[in-house]
Structures are given as structure tokens and as C-alpha cells.
């Protein structure tokens, strides 16, 4: 086969992304370690992340409900492979624990890191609690990870 040419290019992509009012309120709350969901008056679901419309009922939502920074681990994994961190484009080193967490007061789950990375010590149904960063900027990584409390 004749020579084939490939060209490698490193590109930097920049964004400017607007949260919308619901996510703004939620993000501002994180600075104060406050988690709020928005709930639908028809189906009653309390949504995280908050958003303007209920996708099931297709109506506008404006009712806020407090959510605890504690909840139940409903799914988990331990990543054994470095994965790309979408905030930077850098790889996150493995192993690290990750879970779907049903926070008390919410009806949808939150995907976040777990402090525990030993698969033998993780189980569905465990109670977990947020570990907050001291410096908070109003973003999901104001929560460092969740730790198992029992």
C-alpha cells in the first residue's frame, strides 16, 4: 500500500454557557451549602437539576423544595480506567468511586463521586452524605464527593 498521511492537531475549544434562571438559583444556593429542587405541580416530581419545564407533563415549574445533602446510594461503580474530566480535557486518574444518589427530598438522582473506591465496601442502599469544599464557587464541584455514613 502506498504511503498514507495523517495530520495531528490539538484544538482548544472555549465555551460561554448561560445557566438560565432555575440553574442560577440552584448554583447560588450551592455557595451556601443549600440544595434545592424544583417540583412539578402535576406529577409531583422534585427535579434535580432544577429546570424550567417538566419533561413528562410539559408544563412550567416554579415551586422550589429543599433537599438534604444526605441520601441513599442507588447505583455505584468504581472506575478502574482513567476517564476524561469534561471541565478540563485532562484525564482523571483511577480508581475512583462514583454513584447515583437519591438525596432526601428529591425524586431524581445525582451522579457524583464517592469517597470510597473499594468495591467491597460499597452497596446499593447505603446512606451517603456530601463532603463540601471550603471554597465554593456555585458549581457541582463545590461538593468534593459523597461519603458513606452507614
Amino acid at each position, binding site marked *: *500500500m502506498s504511503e*498514507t498521511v*495523517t495530520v495531528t492537531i490539538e*484544538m482548544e475549544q472555549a*465555551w460561554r*454557557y448561560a*445557566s438560565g434562571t432555575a*440553574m442560577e438559583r440552584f*448554583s447560588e444556593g450551592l455557595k451556601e451549602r443549600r440544595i434545592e429542587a424544583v417540583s412539578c405541580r402535576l406529577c409531583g416530581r422534585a*427535579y*434535580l*437539576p432544577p429546570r424550567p419545564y417538566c*419533561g*413528562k407533563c410539559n408544563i412550567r415549574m416554579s415551586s422550589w423544595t429543599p433537599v438534604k445533602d444526605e441520601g441513599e446510594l*442507588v*447505583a*455505584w*461503580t*468504581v*472506575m*478502574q*480506567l482513567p*476517564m*476524561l*474530566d*469534561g*471541565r478540563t*480535557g485532562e*484525564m*482523571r486518574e483511577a480508581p*475512583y468511586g*462514583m*454513584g*447515583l444518589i437519591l438525596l432526601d427530598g428529591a425524586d*431524581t*438522582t*445525582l*451522579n*457524583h*463521586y464517592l469517597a470510597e473506591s473499594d*468495591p467491597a465496601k460499597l452497596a*446499593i442502599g447505603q446512606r451517603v452524605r456530601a463532603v463540601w469544599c471550603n471554597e465554593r464557587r456555585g*458549581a*457541582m*464541584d463545590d461538593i468534593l464527593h459523597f461519603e458513606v455514613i452507614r
Partner: protein
Amino acid sequence: MNRAAIIGTGQTRHARRRDDLSQPELVREACTAALADAGIGQKDIDAVVIANMELFEGRALPELWVGEGAFATGKPCMKIATGGTSGTSGCIAGFHQVASGLFDIVLVVGFEKHSEGHTQTGMALTDPFWDRTVASGALGNFALSISQYMVDRGVTEEQAAKVAVKARRNAARNPYAHLQMPDITEQEVLDSKMLAHPVRMLDMCPQSDGACAIVIAAESKAKKYCDQPAWIRATATRHQQPYIGDIDHRLTSMETLRSAARSVYAAAGIRDPLKELDVAEIYEPVSYAELAWYEALGFCEDGEAGRLIEDGVTEMDGELPVNPSGGVLSTNPVGASGVIRVAEAASQIMGRAGEHQVQGAKTALATGYGVYAWADAMILGTAP
């Protein structure tokens, strides 16, 4: 709605890297094969649909770059980009164009060259306020849902390993398949590297470079060009809410695929899919997903998927062979993978599946799966 049928299919050899071909050349290889299979020329094509996830290549506007590879110059051409369902949704879009009476012959081509971009980057560019904090990828998302599914249904790692082995043994009879592992054993799967508990390397699909095309024709043209067209009897597409956390017990419930399947079965008059379908090509990016899809597709009762694979029901010599091609577990150029499902199902109906032909296949199911829980379904048959 007018009748429409698939009259030709074509695909490239799929591999980790196809540096020997540019994106348009890769697309052309599949399209040329599909036209030859259909026995038509490029002038017979009225419109073109391209399926691709351009973020995976890191290059914008694939319909611009690869359109001429797909004979689209001067013709109506559009792109579908819906994650894993891109290919099946592209086929359904092409079907709509013919069934509506707008066009007589539509060429649908899906492609992906993962080697040219960075798939994880494409996957990570989600909602920056919510999802992007967690480095998860398709692998991590699946692993989370699988942890629930295993508890909900009592599925075991051994049962998932049987799915992984079935796929690669079937792929050994498919010359186009990417992974060629004819001698793979369940023990090898169970001993393969842990990627994300409980998902191991051989439970996952590969990343492939490849393209696949189909030709969809209106009834008069289908009868003119093809002795045994694969008639499109029913299609369905279902989308879902935007975040993984919105979907309760995703693999266990899989409401979208259940709904899509119910819809196409009803339209095609199918009451017992296990008995009435002769072959299925389903979109299973991970071994465990195939088990969950058995339940969602009604091949068995909920909780019986493990038994189905253990009893060999979905093997090549079983009651309902699932993925004779080797499936997504053996070949996954994402934008093409849904088209491959449809093309493989059509080839079975047309009797052109070669060494992985299911003898006498009259009714076939093809499905697509995308992002968290998008689903497509299509029923093909020997009669309209």
C-alpha cells in the same frame, strides 16, 4: 403511507483505525457497495441521509465533507446526529422520505472514524452546570445502571460473559466485523481487565472506524430492482428526559425501548416476539445491556433474561438468534452502528447474510440505542 423496502446494503471492513481512507472515501466504500448490492446507479438516488456523531471526529459539518462520498452533490441531503440511535434514526428518516411519497429511492449512510477524534471528549461535552463535573463516559454510566440491574434482576457476571462470547463467536462468521475472536471463552471474559465494576474489557464494545449504507426504495422500484426486498413493516422512535438521574432504574425499566417495541409489534401484528421473530439485530454496547433489552423487547418475562442466554435461546441455532453479525459488542463505529443493525436485519430477510444467514428468516427486528435511553425499533419482513 406508501410501502417501502430495503433493496441493498453495503458496509466497509471495520477496524480500530482506517487511516488508509479519508472520511469521504470511507463513506464512498459503503455507498458503492450498497448501490452494487441494490443493482442501481448513483443517478437513481433521489435523496441522501447521513448519520454521524461529528463531535467524535472533532470536525464540524460531516454532511459537507462526506456528502460527495455519498453521491449527495446536487441532491437533497440531511444529517442525523442522535448518539447511538443516529444510524437507526437515519434509516427511519429515510423510510419516512420514501413512505411519504416524496422520493422513490433514498440512500442512508452512517459512519464514524473514532480514530480521528477523541470519543470521550465528545461524550464529556454535556451540561457544564450539572453533568460535566463527573468523569463518567458511556462506560461509567452503564456501570452505574448495571449495578442496579444486577440487584433488580439477579443477573450474574457469568450470564453477561455468555452474551460477550456469543457476540464474538458470531462475529467470526462475519468478514466485516471488527473484533475477530473465534476462540473466546467465558473464562477469558471473566478474567479480562476490570474497567468499571462490574464491567470488564470484554463486556464492552470496541471503538471502530467504519461505514454502512442501505438503499430504501418505493414499492414499484423495490419490485423492479429486487427479487426479495426487505419490506419495512413498522418503525418507532422514542426519546427521553435529558439527565441520567431522571430515569429511574434505567436498564431495568427501559421505558423507551419497551414502548418502541410495543408500537412496532402492534403495527406488524406480532403478539409473541420470541416465536414470531426469526432474527434480531439489537444495539448492545455492553453485554449486560443485551440481557436488559431481552426483557424490554419482550423476548422473555422480566427477570428471565439470564435464563434465556443460559438456555441458548438467542444463539445462532436457538429459537431467536440475536445479533448473528456479532453486534455492537464486535463492531462499533457509532454513527454507522444503527445502520449496521438495519442492514444486517435486511440482509437476513433478503437471504444475503452469507455465513451468518439464519435460514428462512421472514421477520426481523432491528433496534437502536442512544445516549442514556433513546430507542429506535424497526420490523422488516419478506412481505409488505
